[in-house]
């Protein structure tokens, strides 16, 4: 099937779906229509805003996470050089542990010497060797960022050279897990707000529907009575507006 015929087929199916929907919507009372419109608009607006806010928040948070990762790995690279050169391996280990403790999104940190041998790391009971050749500094003085998927979610790995890579490389991994929890909490709050707004909207729409449809229903009832031959019947005048003018 060609692309053009596929598009025509999709368009025809969409049209059929829309006609059926309109047939259903056209068959209900005015009150239901107004309530339905208010509810649909509130829901669509709420979902739209929630999606957009979630998208913007995610982008901002991930951008900040990347900036933070770059800062942390460069700071760690600067502070690791002296202990590494002085063979102070415990000092290096302490530095890495403190970095992980002081930055809630930092999942791990480790240091390799000039030959690629891991000198210190923050993992318990072994080391995930898959990390070893995953990321390398792109240049002698800049850090390199790499995003990968793990069993703990998405991880941003940063690599920075120590003394232009002569003496080693420092690696830091930042997890998105905490930020995703914050984003989910914001989304949940927004959906709850949307629900409350929809409820207020339904109450307001019910009042509006009552105000609008009561005189119309009275006019319908009066018209029915006149149709049955009762020429004395008058529709009550509820307000001095366009509908009120019809009752005269």
């Amino acid at each position: 099937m060609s692309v053009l015929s596929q598009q025509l087929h999709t368009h025809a199916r969409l049209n059929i779906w829309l006609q059926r929907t309109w047939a259903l919507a056209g068959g209900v009372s005015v009150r239901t229509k107004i309530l339905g419109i208010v509810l649909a608009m509130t829901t669509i607006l709420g979902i739209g805003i929630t999606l957009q806010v979630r998208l913007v928040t995610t982008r901002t948070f991930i951008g900040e996470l990347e900036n933070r990762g770059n800062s942390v790995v460069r700071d760690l690279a600067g502070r690791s050089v002296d202990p590494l050169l002085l063979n102070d391996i415990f000092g290096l280990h302490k530095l890495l542990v403190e970095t992980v403790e002081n930055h809630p999104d930092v999942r791990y940190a480790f240091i390799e010497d000039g030959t690629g041998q891991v000198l210190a790391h923050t993992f318990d009971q072994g080391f995930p060797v898959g990390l070893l050749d995953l990321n390398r500094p792109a240049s002698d003085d800049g850090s390199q960022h790499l995003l990968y998927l793990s069993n703990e979610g998405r991880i941003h790995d940063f690599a920075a050279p120590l003394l232009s890579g002569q003496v080693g490389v420092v690696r830091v991994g930042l997890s998105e897990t905490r930020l995703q929890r914050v984003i989910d909490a914001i989304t949940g709050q927004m959906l709850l707000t949307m629900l409350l707004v929809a409820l207020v909207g339904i109450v307001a729409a019910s009042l509006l529907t009552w105000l609008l449809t009561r005189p119309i229903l009275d006019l319908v009832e009066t018209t029915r009575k006149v149709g049955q031959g009762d020429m004395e019947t008058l529709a009550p005048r509820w307000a001095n507006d366009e509908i009120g003018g019809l009752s005269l």
Partner: protein
Amino acid sequence: MKFWLRAFSRIIAGLILLSTGCAGTQPLMYIDLSRREPLPPAAPQAAPLRLAVAAIFSPQSTAESYHNLAAYLGQKLGRPVQLIQRRTYAEVNNLIAKNEVDLAFVCTSAYVDGHDRFGLELLVAPEINGQTVYYSQLIVPAHSPAQSMADLRGRVFVFTDPMSYSGRVYPTYLLQQLGSPILGYTPQAFFSRTFFTYSHDKAIQAVADGVADGAAVDSLVLQYAIEREPGLRERVRVIHQSPAFGIPPVVVPPSLPPQQKEELRRLLLNMHTDPLGGRILSDLGIDRFVLVEDTVYESARQVVRATCCLDEDQKR
């Protein structure tokens, strides 16, 4: 009506696309962080030449300065060179005493101590500006009114290393000369506070930044630091210079096989004649390496003995 319905469906489709279609389309690599293994052992290497450099400069500056020299020695000897640094001169001396180092650049008093304690041997000494001597220079911040060591009484003074000749032994000796002939001043009694920076460049920086009111530093390091950062000339001032003492030498442990010792000596003595070797020496501010006798260090030895600085450290 159909138009509006069509438009509405398009808006919804657009929103869904916006929320889902913005994620990267490239598949991400997967790593299982819970799969831990013991780290692979280091690949076996030829026995390296262990080259130690005392912390005259900060570890980072030393690594930057001596990296090319280490690479040159490795290339000429046909085996890797391991650059070893420790925080203090005493730690480097202990490594040499335990034969954990094959070749070392040490401070004058570290040589005097090592020679007298465990037979540390002179190999060669650097010649700088045609001389094999250096000085201890007393520096203060440029705006300081101090004109001599006596003016620093009650001030904050920074030492470089407990074993440093120019950075601790000589200024301690100066204080002794300031007191009575029988009982001279001690740093603790003379200054309000003292501390160690464990390298000369950090001591210069501490005085330049006003962290300390004075320091005694290696004249060669001060000259090198000013060449690298000319602004220092405006921030520190030399108020006293010691007599000339024997320059910090290159040494080997007494147990190093004579053949290896001779090979290293020949290599260093001829380094300036090789174009690459000459460039590396020039970057280090060294003209060439020359042979020196232990007698060159006799004047420094007398001052060390007079102050007993190193004896006190040994007792500690």
